[in-house]
């Protein structure tokens, strides 16, 4: 379970996260929604241990992620802006991942690489944007994380690839209760895969709840109701 309580983070004098609380139950797929600049990416960067909050607490399975190397190995983050070592192929990246992640699954890595039709020996730097994203997924899913954090994961991916990814995600959620926290703008896509939803605005949580309890209201209606209505008092 991911538990974020009253987290505030300032960039200079501006609160990008403002007294934000959120709970992601184990084995759920939690969709994080919000307009651009709402704080979604900043939140994910805190959870992966890249940023440290000014106040409040963040815990995963009851432990603080900062300086917790063992816990960091159970949490995989696929950012919107991907990082690979310069000139590395997927095979070379996989050697690095294998050392880092104790549950590395070589068979899964090979299966996914083949399934996506990626050349494991090619320089990832020469891949298209969508192929880089697929490469990042192959590496992340083969690390068999307990927690997978995804920032705008389907941006730039074609429908066939999206469908395959969905299958890999659901398999891991069903088989080993992997927990997924995913940010997106796409209400329909989120509605199809998530069971929990959180809507962020200006660093605050404006709605959090079980998606299935909203029915028959659609997520798109809720999103517009929460974010598109009258301008809020600050």
């Amino acid at each position: 379970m991911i538990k974020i309580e009253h987290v505030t983070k300032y960039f200079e004098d501006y609160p990008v996260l403002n007294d934000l609380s959120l709970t992601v139950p184990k084995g759920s797929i939690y969709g994080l929604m919000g307009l651009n600049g709402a704080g979604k990416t900043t939140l994910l960067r805190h959870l992966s241990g890249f940023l440290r909050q000014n106040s409040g607490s963040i815990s995963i399975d009851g432990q603080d992620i900062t300086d917790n190397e063992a816990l960091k190995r159970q949490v995989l983050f696929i950012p919107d802006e991907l990082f690979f070592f310069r000139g590395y192929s997927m095979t070379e990246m996989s050697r690095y991942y294998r050392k880092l992640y104790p549950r590395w699954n070589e068979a899964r890595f090979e299966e996914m690489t083949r399934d996506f039709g990626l050349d494991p020996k090619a320089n990832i730097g020469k891949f298209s944007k969508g192929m880089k994203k697929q490469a990042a997924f192959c590496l992340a899913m083969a690390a068999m994380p307990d927690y997978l954090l995804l920032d705008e994961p389907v941006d730039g991916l074609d429908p066939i690839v999206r469908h395959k990814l969905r299958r890999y995600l659901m398999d891991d959620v069903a088989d080993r209760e992997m927990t997924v926290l995913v940010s997106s703008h796409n209400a329909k896509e989120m509605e199809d895969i998530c069971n929990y939803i959180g809507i962020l605005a200006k660093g605050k949580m404006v709605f959090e709840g079980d998606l299935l309890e909203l029915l028959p209201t659609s997520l798109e209606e809720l999103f517009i109701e929460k974010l598109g209505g009258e301008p809020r008092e600050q």
Partner: protein
Amino acid sequence: MLQLDLKSRKSIYEQVMDQLKEQIMTGQMATGEKLPSVRELSKSITVNPNTVQKAYRELERQGYVYTTSGVGTFVADRSEIHADLPALQKAQENLDDAFRQLLFLGIGYEKAKNLTMQIIERRRPDHDKN
């Protein structure tokens, strides 16, 4: 095997509920038959297992299935299912609106009625035939 339509206006949850109810009510799944486990169904139709779990719980609450802990979920006796009033009312309103739309097309009352009767006949469950 359930078939989901990702372009449908209905949510994945509603589609899972509808299709399981259809299999149960048409007798494609027999009384006492075991449903796939949440994990199996989730994987075979690529749906969030939490959504499938919720559908099973709701089907149980409405009396379509029963769960024996540690054993699985089974199709309940259809005669035990009692329509709840709001659901019945909603279904009647939908039927009324659909027939009204048919009349709006200007095909005349008799033709609209015949078309409707054909649909009704097509939906007759196997166990009610003869």
